[in-house]
């Protein structure tokens, strides 16, 4: 049997291929449509069955099923282009390839394409588990390749598999070097079709129930790292969007122009921080109030919110400074007054009338605000996640009928009443509060921290933040929400108590925080590693931007050097002879130098004869060593160490 390639019918090669494919596809099964996952699993199982039965699937059936699957993918995604359709299709084809695998060539193709399939899973997740998966999957593929390339097939895995592990371990430091040195690009090479995907998080509209719905999500919205001073938790208002247009039921974000010139308002720096934001597939990003100068890659709107040019589809890391802005110098323009007093006609009439009536009793803006808040405090207003559903007029329904609501109910109603009373006001949405992680010394803001509050314009003072939920009487706050509500900006001392950060309690919470610290490191330093970070630490090493090409040369030189060092050690180990042979070869070399015509193809007895025939003197010296060698090689079962020692001595005497 003279062959180009080893046949894959050798023992265990096909089952091993099935296992490798299953490992490679495993994470994708959680992300791709379930019928595609089910089909790939069925194919792998079917192949195992056919392998046991010793049959092959006829090609025409394969063709029909492949066409059906392509049709299915098209029906599912309405396209064969794009990330999701592409990955669905490629995982199906990958599994099908196994069905028709009959030769070394097919198996090789499957194993090498596996490397690509592994990478497709990273489009869905870059969590720390995926790093573990990468190592396991590469190990499995390498084991598959070892089995495929060794005549014993999968039986060799036991003794040869170690080589795969060793190779992988040696590959890791090289990978780390390349990871940090490889030049990164800050912009994509081509624009990608965005797969619109509902990212969870704050949206640009607000209606009753929309923020309450986020309360159940424990997903992390962003992590914050303060430089220096840290604000009290009740001061942690993470501003995202300003909603000022109201249609009677829903609040909308209105269009603002970015502020291009320098802010000419007097302001003082308060806190410095860095945010590591999880993708929200939206343009807006969050910052600690008050927001001013936008971080790199974003710009400031005239309503003091930040937007990015593109959507945040990957983790986004930015540094920013919080300010205390003094708005008193710059009154609202006519346009702004109109905008922040605008109310739709024909809805929520009861509340409008009520507000205008009450305004008569409290002519000063400040007194009126104070009175409304105490009205909330003293009346039967409840803070709850499950308020009765309001169908049409969201403010009337809440203010007079249910008096139960979550933050969006209070913020919406409060702004409505303010506007009805002639006080410019707007709704602000974002997050409030944070959880401290002592293991990583940073703060975690979760989707469940989503919040809505308000801003009112006071002449001579400017925008003032008012959180109407802080006014609700603690006894009327739902048990689950008590922690949130108690740490809000009370504005008036009698309503809110400032609660500091408490040390985490309980083992589980401790472990959870430690785990989050690891994940934060992974996502910030490893997955968040970008061109900026690369430039940053290179600058620390004294490499300036214009010298980067030297970096490339350095990288190349490092790799070549590593190759030489590595090559030397690996190849030297191939020459490591066992001691008896080593000394025998040494002896032959010595004899050759003394003029004995011998070489390594001759047996020791022949060498003995030749030596005797050539030179008696040399024979006298070499004979003991040769005789010991014969004894060592052909008479001994196991090598005796004293004999070996004697042999070495005898060789050295020649």
């Amino acid at each position, binding site marked *: *049997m*003279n*062959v*180009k390639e*080893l046949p894959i019918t050798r023992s265990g090669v096909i089952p091993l291929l099935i296992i490798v494919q299953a490992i490679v596809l495993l994470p994708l099964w959680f992300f791709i449509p379930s019928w595609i996952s089910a089909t790939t699993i069925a194919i792998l199982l079917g192949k195992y069955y056919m392998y046991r039965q010793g049959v092959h699937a006829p090609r025409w059936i394969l063709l029909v099923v492949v066409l059906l699957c392509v049709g299915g993918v098209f029906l599912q995604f309405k396209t064969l282009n794009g990330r999701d359709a592409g990955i669905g299709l490629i995982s199906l084809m990958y599994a099908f390839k196994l069905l028709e695998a009959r030769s070394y060539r097919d198996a*090789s*193709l499957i194993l*090498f394409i596996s*490397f*690509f399939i*592994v*990478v497709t899973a*990273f*489009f869905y997740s*870059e969590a720390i588990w995926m*790093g573990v998966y*990468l190592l396991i999957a*590469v190990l499995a593929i*390498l084991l598959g*390749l*070892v089995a*495929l*390339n*060794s*005549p*014993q097939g999968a039986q060799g895995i036991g003794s*040869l598999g170690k*080589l*795969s592990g060793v*190779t992988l371990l*040696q*590959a*890791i430091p*090289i*990978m780390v070097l*390349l*990871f940090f040195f*490889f030049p990164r690009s800050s912009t*994509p*090479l081509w624009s*990608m079709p965005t797969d619109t995907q509902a990212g969870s998080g704050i949206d640009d509209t607000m209606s009753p129930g929309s923020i309450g719905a986020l309360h159940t999500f424990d997903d992390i919205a962003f992590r914050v790292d303060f430089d220096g001073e840290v604000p009290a938790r009740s001061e942690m208002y993470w501003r995202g969007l300003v909603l000022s247009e109201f249609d009677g039921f829903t609040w909308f974000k209105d269009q603002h122009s970015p502020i291009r010139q320098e802010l000419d308002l007097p302001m003082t720096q308060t806190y410095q921080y860095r945010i590591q934001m999880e993708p929200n597939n939206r343009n807006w990003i969050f910052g600690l109030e008050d927001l001013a100068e936008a971080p790199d890659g974003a710009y400031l709107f005239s309503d003091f919110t930040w937007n990015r040019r593109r959507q945040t589809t*990957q983790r986004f890391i930015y540094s920013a400074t919080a300010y205390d802005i003094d708005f008193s110098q710059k009154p609202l323009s006519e346009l702004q007054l109109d905008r922040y007093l605008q109310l739709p006609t024909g809805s929520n009439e009861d509340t409008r009338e009520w507000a205008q009536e009450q305004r008569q009793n409290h002519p000063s803006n400040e007194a009126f605000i104070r009175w409304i808040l105490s009205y909330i405090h003293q009346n039967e207003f409840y803070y709850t996640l499950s308020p009765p559903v309001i169908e049409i007029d969201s403010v009337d329904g809440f203010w007079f009928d249910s008096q139960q609501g979550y933050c969006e109910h209070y913020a919406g109603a409060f702004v409505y009443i303010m506007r009805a009373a002639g006080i410019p006001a707007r709704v602000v949405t974002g997050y409030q509060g944070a959880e401290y992680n002592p293991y990583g010394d940073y703060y975690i803001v979760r989707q469940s921290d989503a919040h809505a509050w308000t801003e009112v314009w006071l002449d001579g003072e400017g925008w003032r933040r008012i959180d109407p939920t802080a006014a609700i009487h603690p006894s009327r706050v739902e048990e689950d929400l008590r922690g949130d509500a108690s740490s809000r900006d009370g504005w008036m001392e009698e309503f809110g108590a400032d609660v500091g950060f408490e040390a985490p309690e309980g083992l589980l919470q401790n472990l959870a925080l430690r785990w989050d610290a690891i994940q934060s490191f992974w996502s910030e330093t*490893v*997955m*968040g*590693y970008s061109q900026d970070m690369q430039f940053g630490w290179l600058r620390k090493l004294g490499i300036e931007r214009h010298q980067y090409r030297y970096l490339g040369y350095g990288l190349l030189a490092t790799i070549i050097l590593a*190759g030489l060092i*590595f090559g030397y050690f*690996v*190849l030297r*180990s*191939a*020459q*490591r*002879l*066992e001691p008896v*042979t080593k000394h025998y*070869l040494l002896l032959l070399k010595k004899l050759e130098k003394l003029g004995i015509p011998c070489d*390594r*193809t001759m047996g020791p007895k022949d060498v003995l004869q030749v030596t005797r025939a050539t030179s008696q003197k040399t024979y006298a010296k070499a004979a003991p060593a040769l005789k010991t060698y014969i004894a060592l090689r052909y008479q001994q079962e196991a090598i005796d160490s004293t004999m070996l020692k004697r042999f070495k001595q005898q060789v050295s005497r020649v």
Partner: protein
Amino acid sequence: MLSAIKKSFFSWVDKRSPRQSATVLRQKNIYILPTRYGWLMLGILVLILIASTNYQNNMGFMAGFVLLAVGFLSLFYTFRNLKGIEVRCLKSAPVFASNDAIVTVQLFNTTQSQRVGIGLGLSKKSVRYVDVAAESKSSVQVNLATNKRGLLDVPRLACTTMFPFGIFEAWSWVRSPYQVLVYPKPIPCPEPLVASNRGIEDGNTREKGAEDFHSLRDYQAGDPIKQVMWKAYARERGLYSKEFEDYVGEQQTLSWDSVAHYEKELAISYLADAVLSAEESQQHYGLELPQQTIATGQGAEHMHSCLKALALM
């Protein structure tokens, strides 16, 4: 053009691997290149790196770099798998033309590392795979097609490996110093050969024959099957031939003149066939060729010298 390059390349290769019975594979005579799957992997790697740059996907970068590192390392491991192996070509037994000659090649591994999936064959594309355990040897038989009588040079043999991952293929060319003797292809002559029969002049001499059992000796290729001592063989003691003594019955001399009127190659084939049938029927026979005469005799060695004379004529 291409063939000229190939020719000069192989003359360079041959200079580096002289014909010798034992060749140790080392840097000087091992060549290494990516296999086609290695090139495929390179393509996949480039694809992964481009996609990772585009999607700013750091996991993708990690995967790409692990792949790059594995490919890089496998260069050394594949090379190491071949390095230090000693390839010994053995002399091969004569064969009749158009039968395959068997070239036995032994792979010696005097090192402490196991060598896996070493392929040996006439070209890189046609090999047999064996493993060579640490401090041991394996042998591979290479079939060599013959079509012409005479001495056949054993062509350049490829010793190759793709272990461990099939990303790189390391190989070496080894050249055997031995030639294979190819006997003429025996073809029965359509007419009876005019044999110069000298009768039983020396009829009383004892010659090796088939009548009386005389002794045992090692089996030699060509010994009649009925003389093999099967009992010994069945007990796994090896093949022995019983030697008999025989009163020689008849003798014949196979003469070139009797076939000289045929085309030369055909004539040689007829004589070869005549030698075989004479040997088979345990006659004593001799050979008279234009340049050479072989005295009458019998037995495997005698047959060999007759066939050799015919092969080299």
